């Protein structure tokens, strides 16, 4: 049975990652204790942790702001991206216009557009959501299009032989078949959505972890900068694993395939 094997291998992998991360912080701590660099260059991990503890509410509030922008941008990208992908797969016109445009625009670093959104939408949450959305959208569209297209031609023939219409072929065959691709797109998109939110906060904001970093940097409060970065690292990891967990729940067939392929190779 593949299931217990994959669970065992993934938990041992998680343990390995945890050990490496802990080891990294231990080395950092030792390095700072021995080398004694000035605080404004490199604070020790225990100082960063202490900083987080001095104002937990402050960090919590700002983290929530960033998470909110990230999740809203991501969700919007997911909904719009999936709809766009279906349109692109079923319509030659949309493929030639929308898809071509998306691919062409993807070579523009979207972070460079952040100032524009501040001009258009102000310095509040909505501009961060918009940047987050835009930067995450491409990954969702590209992977969904790929997934919707990569169906077994024999399966399409099977549906045709049973007179399955376009809608049924989409719902019963193409969409479930695309889910694994969609999830790999979602993992990338989630990381990018966080990048987008931070980029927006860097340009202009009154809240969020990006704002915390920028404000602390201005005052040379390096420990505070590090505290926000550590929080961002934790947040990014949690968001990634939320998508990973959803994938396990929604398409267990694919996860078990993958585990078995890894076991064989």
């Amino acid at each position, binding site marked *: 049975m593949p299931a217990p094997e994959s669970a065992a291998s993934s938990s041992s992998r998680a343990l390995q990652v945890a050990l490496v991360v802990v080891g990294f912080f231990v080395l950092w701590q030792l390095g700072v204790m021995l080398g004694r660099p000035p605080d404004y260059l490199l604070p020790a991990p225990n100082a960063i942790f202490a900083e987080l503890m001095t104002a937990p509410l402050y960090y919590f509030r700002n983290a929530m702001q960033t998470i909110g922008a990230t999740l809203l941008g991501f969700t919007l990208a997911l909904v719009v991206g999936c709809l766009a992908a279906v349109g692109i797969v079923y319509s030659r016109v949309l493929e030639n216009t929308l898809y071509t445009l998306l691919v062409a625009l993807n070579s523009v670093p979207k972070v460079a557009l952040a100032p524009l959104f501040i001009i258009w939408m102000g310095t509040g949450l909505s501009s961060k959501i918009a940047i987050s959305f835009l930067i995450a959208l491409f990954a969702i569209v590209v992977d969904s299009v790929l997934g919707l297209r990569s169906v077994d031609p*024999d399966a399409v*023939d099977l549906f045709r032989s*049973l007179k399955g219409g376009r809608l049924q072929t989409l719902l019963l065959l193409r969409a479930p078949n695309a889910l694994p691709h969609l999830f790999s797109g979602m993992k990338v998109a989630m990381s990018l959505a966080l990048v987008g939110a931070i980029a927006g906060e860097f340009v202009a904001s009154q809240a969020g972890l990006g704002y915390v970093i920028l404000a602390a940097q201005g005052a040379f409060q390096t420990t505070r900068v590090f505290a926000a970065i550590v929080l961002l690292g934790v947040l990014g990891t949690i968001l990634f694993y939320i998508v990973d967990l959803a994938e396990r729940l929604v398409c267990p*067939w*694919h996860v078990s395939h993958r585990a078995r392929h890894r076991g064989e190779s």
Partner: protein
Amino acid sequence: MNDLPSADQAFLAVSRLDKRYGTQEEGILALKEVSIEIGNAEFVSLLGPSGCGKSTLLRCIAGLERPSAGMIELERRVVIGPPDNMGIVFQRDVLLDWLTVIRNVLLPARIRRLPLEELRPKAERLLHLIGLGGFEDRFPWELSGGMRQRVAICRALLLDPSLLLMDEPFGALDAMTRDELNIELQRLWLADAKTVLFVTHSIAEAVFLSDRVAVMSRSPGRIVEVITVDLPRPRELAVRETAEFARYVSQIRRIFESFGMLRGSHARA
């Protein structure tokens, strides 16, 4: 073709069928003037080397491809799209990974928007009949290749088609599993006789299963001879060691040789 049940009662009639890919001048002729009539509940194999158009012929009959010329009639109605009373099994099982075995078998009902609950007992019975009772709630990835193809056969039989089309269904299986499924298929067919059109490139498989074997040649793809196999049923695997069986096999092999398709001992029996 002098042994038809009765020419005007043919269940499936293919007449002067051409299938051309590409243009008239430059295209290739995959099928040329193919004609065959198949009676109700008859088991007929299309046998030939790869590239002889046997799968193309099957796909034309399935209504998945348009013939370039000629006509196909199923129960006296011209086939212009996939017929209602047809089931199809491909070389690959094309089970949907995200559905359990029972839901894969019920897929045709879902596509056709038929009530699933009414067909569920039928699906369970088919699985039981083919030796997969108790596997209803497993997923395809938990099954072996032979078991997966059995599920595909059940799926093709769910809506009780009068015509079953099989496109090298056991081509990807190992020899022993293949033998097992040959026996299984014969058993199903004897229990509930349907018209079966079975594509294969194995002479032994064709002789073992069929009432008649249509021997095909390539460039252009055509039927060169139809052999009637007069072995008593039910046939057991041991029938393959009898002199009669060997006679059929060598007769077919000689046909292939006379068309330059088998040289030396390339024959796959």
